[in-house]
C-alpha cells in the first residue's frame, strides 16, 4: 500500500534525509521518501502491518524533529 502524508513544520532538510534513512530501516517498508520541498511523506509498505509501521514512523519523526507533525 502506498500513501502520502503532509508533514507540518518540517524545518530542516538534513533532518528530512535522516528521517528517510531511519524509516527505510523499519520492517515491512518497501520504499519511503521524505520530500523537504513539498513537505510530504510518501510511504510504500506491506498492507498487513501498515498501522504499526505508521506508529513507528511517527516516533521516528518525533525523535528527529520534535516540532514536526504528520497530518494523518
Amino acid at each position, binding site marked *: 500500500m502506498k500513501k502520502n502524508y503532509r508533514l507540518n513544520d518540517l*524545518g530542516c532538510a538534513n533532518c528530512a534525509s535522516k528521517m528517510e534513512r531511519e524509516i527505510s530501516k523499519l520492517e515491512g517498508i518497501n520504499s519511503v*521518501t521524505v520530500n523537504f*520541498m513539498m*513537505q*510530504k511523506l510518501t510511504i510504500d509498505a506491506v498492507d498487513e502491518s501498515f498501522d504499526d509501521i505508521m506508529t513507528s514512523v511517527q516516533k521516528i519523526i518525533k525523535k528527529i524533529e520534535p516540532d514536526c507533525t504528520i497530518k494523518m
Partner: protein
Amino acid sequence: MSKAKKEIFRIGAGTLVLIIAVAVSFPSYLNLAFFLAAYFIIGGDVLWRAIRNILHGQVFDENFLMSIATIGAFFVGEYPEAVSVMLFYQVGEMFQDYAVNRSRKSISSLMDIRPDYANVKRNGELVTVDPEEVAINEIIVVKAGEKIPLDGKVIEGHSLVDTSALTGESVPREINVSSEVLSGCINLNGLLTIQVAKEFGESTVSKILDLVENASNKKAKRENFITRFARYYTPVVVIVAVILAVVPPLLVPGATFSDWIYRALTFLVVSCPCALVISIPLGFFGGIGGASKLGILIKGGNYLEALAATELVVFDKTGTLTKGTFKVTEINPVGISDTELLELTAHAESYSNHPISQSLKNAFESEIDNSRITDVEEIPGHGVKAVVDGKTVYAGNSKLMEKVGAVYSHNKTVGTVVHVTVNGVYAGYIVISDEIKEDSVSAIAKLKACGIHKTVMLTGDAKDVGEAVAETLGLDEVYTELLPVDKVEKVEKLLAEKSPKGNLAFAGDGINDAPVLSRADIGIAMGGLGSDAAIEAADVVIMNDEPSKIATAIAISKKTLRIVNQNIVFALGVKAIVLAMGAFGISNLWEAVFADVGVSVIAILNSARALRVDNTFK
C-alpha cells in the same frame, strides 16, 4: 503576531541588549550578565532544541553544534563573539527559511492548475461542488474565465480554451461540440456544457500534478552523492575539531588550550552540510517545475540529470516527426485543371472509407454530390472505377494504369500516388502523404546546436518515404521498413555505439513503442495529452506534439546541472577554505558562520534560478 514577526522582535530585543553590553563599560560580572542575557534571548530556542535532541539521542545536529560552539566561545572569554555568532546564525536561518518558503511558493504557483470547483447540473439545477464529487457522465457547465475541472466531451457550446497550463502552448485552442476537453485548461470566452468522461483522480490535471509532485522522489546521482556526503561530513568535522582542541595544546610547546579550542569551535560551526542538503534537491525540483511550465513533464531528478548527457536521439517517424495524418500534398494534372482533377478523383473515391479517400475529400473541401456518381466498382489492390458526370474515371496505383493501358509518369515523391484516367485518357496524378510537423526541421537543428552527436529515425514505413523525410529533416541516419521488434534491436545496437557516459534518448508517440521507450536511457513520449499509455511508459512526457521540446528539455537539464554544480563547488569550496583557515588560526567564528548559513542562503537563491524558464527556452 505571526511566528516570523515574533522571531524578528525577539532577535531585535536580544541585539539591543548586546549593543548595551558592548557599548557601556559595566563591572565585569555585570558585563557577563548582560552578554548572557542577550545570548539567551537570541539563542534560547537553539539551546532548548539542542538539549531536547540530545535526550532523543540525536547528536551532531545543527542546534547542538551551534550551542557547543557558542558556549565554547564563552568559556574562552570571547563574550561578544559568542553572542554575535548566535545572532548571525539566527538571522541566517531566518533568511534561509524565507528563501525556502519563497521557492516553495513559486513552485506551488507553478502547480496552480488544480480546479477548485465544478458547476454540475443535478435535478435541473446548477450546483457548485468539489470536482472530486463529480461522477462520470454527469453534465458540467464551464463559464468564460473558469478552469475546466474534469476531462470530458463538449455537448453544447463553442469556445476558445487556453491550454498553456498543460502544454506551455500560448495559442488558444478552438473547441466545438463533440471536442474532447482536458481538465486544467481555461475556458476563455464561450459557455461550455461538458459530459464528464473521467473522475477527478483519473483526470489529466490530477495526473500531471501527481507526476510533478512525485518527480522529486526519484533522485539524481548528485542528490544521492550529497546525501551520502552529508552523513559522513558532520561526524568527521566534529571529530577533527575534538582532536584540534585537545592534541596540539598537549603536544606542541607553547600552544594554549584557549587558542586551539577557539580554532576547534570554527570547525563545529562549519560542520553542518545544510547548504548542500537544501539547495541541491531544490535545484532539481526547480528544473522539473520549470520544465512542466513549458509542457515538458520530467518524471524524476535522475532523468533530468540524464538528459544533459544525451548523445544520441532516436525518433520514431509517424506521430513524432510527422503528423500521422494523411493529406493531399501534390496535384499534377495532365490536360485538365487542378480543381477538375481533384473533383473527379474525390468523387470517384468517395464510396471508399480508406484514409486516402478521406484525405481527398478533405482536400476537395466542398460537399460530394452523390447523384453525380454512378457505377462505382472497387478493383482490389488497384483502385477504383466510377462514372462521374457521365465520364468514366479510373483512379488508383500504377498497376491500375498498366491494366487499363494508360501511359503515365510521375516524379520521385514521398507518399502514395493516385493516378487518374478520364474517358481512357491519362489525366495526371495526386500525391497523398503524411505531413512533416512544422517544427520538426528546427527540432533537429536545435538538437545539433546543443551538441547531440547523432540523430536517427526508425520507421516501419517504406524505404523511399522514410529516406525522403530523413533527408528533408537533416537526420544523420534512417532505418526503414522495421517491425516493432526490429526497432528494439536497432536501439540496442545504437546503445552499444554510444560512449559509456552518454545517453540515448528515444522519442516516440507512446503507441506501440513502449518496449523501445523503456529500453532507451531516456524514453520521451510525444503528445502525452490524454494518452495514459504514453505517460505510463515514458520518463519524459512532452504534452503537446512539438519535437523541438526535446531540445528545450535538454537545455533545461543543462542549466539545472550548471546551477547544481556551482552550488556544490561553491559550498564545498567555501567550507574547505574556512576549515583550513580555522585550523591555522586565521579565520574567526564570524567567517565560520558565513560559511554555514551565509553559503546556505546564497546556494538556495542560486537554486531558485532553476525554476525560471524564460523565453530563451521557447
